[in-house]
């Protein structure tokens, strides 16, 4: 019993440390608005849904995450910001311009320095939800399916819409 309690405490502590690390990491992510101007992630009035891409996963480069983001974008009520941030280490300014021309949610696409959050990425990506003050209220766990990501986030969006 004592072992279980110790394990539980350790797990909670690990989660807290990870979450703390994640919060610190996301706070230091900067967007490249121009070559000299780096800006923090702009927060929505109520929620900000941020997907960070360091790389497209070699095993699954079929754009499933883009589809999830597009589906969430179609549900989006006022006050919720959606951002897809590509690492400026692996995606050039030209790549971003091409993506904006090709993908349906051009206004939500951006490029930035995501190095502070790199340790928390799984298969080169991470989806995170921030409240109006920049606190993390949800983040993607490893091995979560796209359907689960979409279900949980659409629930969050609905709950937020119903509060108004």
């Amino acid at each position, binding site marked *: 019993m004592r072992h279980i309690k110790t394990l539980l405490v350790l797990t909670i502590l690990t989660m807290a440390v990870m979450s703390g690390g994640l919060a610190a990491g996301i706070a230091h992510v900067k967007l490249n608005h121009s070559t000299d101007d780096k800006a923090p992630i702009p927060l929505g009035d109520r929620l900000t849904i941020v997907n960070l891409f360091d*790389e*497209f996963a*070699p095993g699954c*480069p*079929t*754009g499933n995450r*883009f*589809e999830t983001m*597009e589906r969430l974008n179609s549900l989006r009520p006022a006050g919720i910001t959606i951002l897809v941030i590509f690492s400026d280490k*692996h*995606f*050039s300014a*030209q*790549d971003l*311009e*091409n*993506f904006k*021309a*090709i*993908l*349906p949610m051009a206004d939500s696409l951006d490029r930035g320095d995501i190095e502070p959050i790199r340790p928390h990425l799984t298969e080169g990506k991470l989806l995170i939800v921030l409240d109006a003050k920049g606190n993390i209220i949800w983040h993607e766990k490893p091995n979560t399916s796209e359907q689960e990501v979409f279900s949980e986030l659409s629930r969050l969006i609905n709950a937020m819409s119903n509060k108004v």
Partner: protein
Amino acid sequence: MNTILGLTLVCRLALVLQAISAIPEAQLRLRPIYLSSQQQEAKLKLAAPAAIAVGRSGNIYLFDGGNSRIVKLDARGKFIAVFGQPGSGPGAVHSGGLNDAIAVDEDENVYVSDPATPKIIIFSSNGTFQRSFRLPFPVTSIAVNRKREIFLTPNVARPTELIFVFSQTGNFLRRFGEKLIKSPGSLAQNLNLAVAAFDVKDNLFVAFRSWPLIRKYSSDDKLIAENQFTIPAELINESQRKNYSLEFFARYPDSAYMPPLITHSISISPRGAGYLLLNAHSIVAFSPSGKVTKQFHFRAPRDRENVFIRIATNVNKNAPAYLLDTRSGEIYAAPEL
């Protein structure tokens, strides 16, 4: 009376035979050009080569996917060079998938579509890395016209155009072409996969992976011909014919139905006629208007163990077509094509 009946039967039989053998058939001989298993040096052994292209000079360029590199051979299959490497950084290419992932332009610059982390990588003909740019989707086929514009057929579930065009410097230029099935779904996504190749006048021929249709687009992206062909009888049985219709696919775009046809590759000759490699062991030829004119039979050296996934021709010069077997890493010339 009997004579009239007999004549009618003969006429009917003739009509049926005409319908069955509407596409003339011919035998094809294959001549080995490059056999990976017989190469002594380790660097000459291929690992699941996924694509082949032939340059104006006749040199052959292989996307040796399993070894994450490009192999350059002369027209007789003599080794010239390798370039590209695994890992990351400029010139890195990744294995993965059996897409028609290589094309060459007039100057024999080499364009590779990296299937794993979707991007286009461009090398000069001597293997010097020139540039790369990212894509938001993997592609099934790459073709380059005389203006060095890069034409890609994407593999995406979302409703979008059939072909995306980029400049040689990597700027997105335009998109065009209608998909076969517009409904979203995994079956629809597979049916919309396509392969593409240019003729010498920059007309673009597109064939769908699992539906017997050849489209021809003019050099200004206009659809100028669309021809449906009859699937060679040996590639489809009666049970497979059931539900094999665009109506069914549009109605059930997520169905687990397995289409009987796989168009692996398309290639155009200097005369503007072209070839489709179907189901790893069958070739059909089509006219410059996209009408199927002939079916070729060939006996592969290893018979059904051969898995031919690519056919490539020199679009500028009359020369044999090449067939690439991905499983054994073998290339054969087909002098009759």
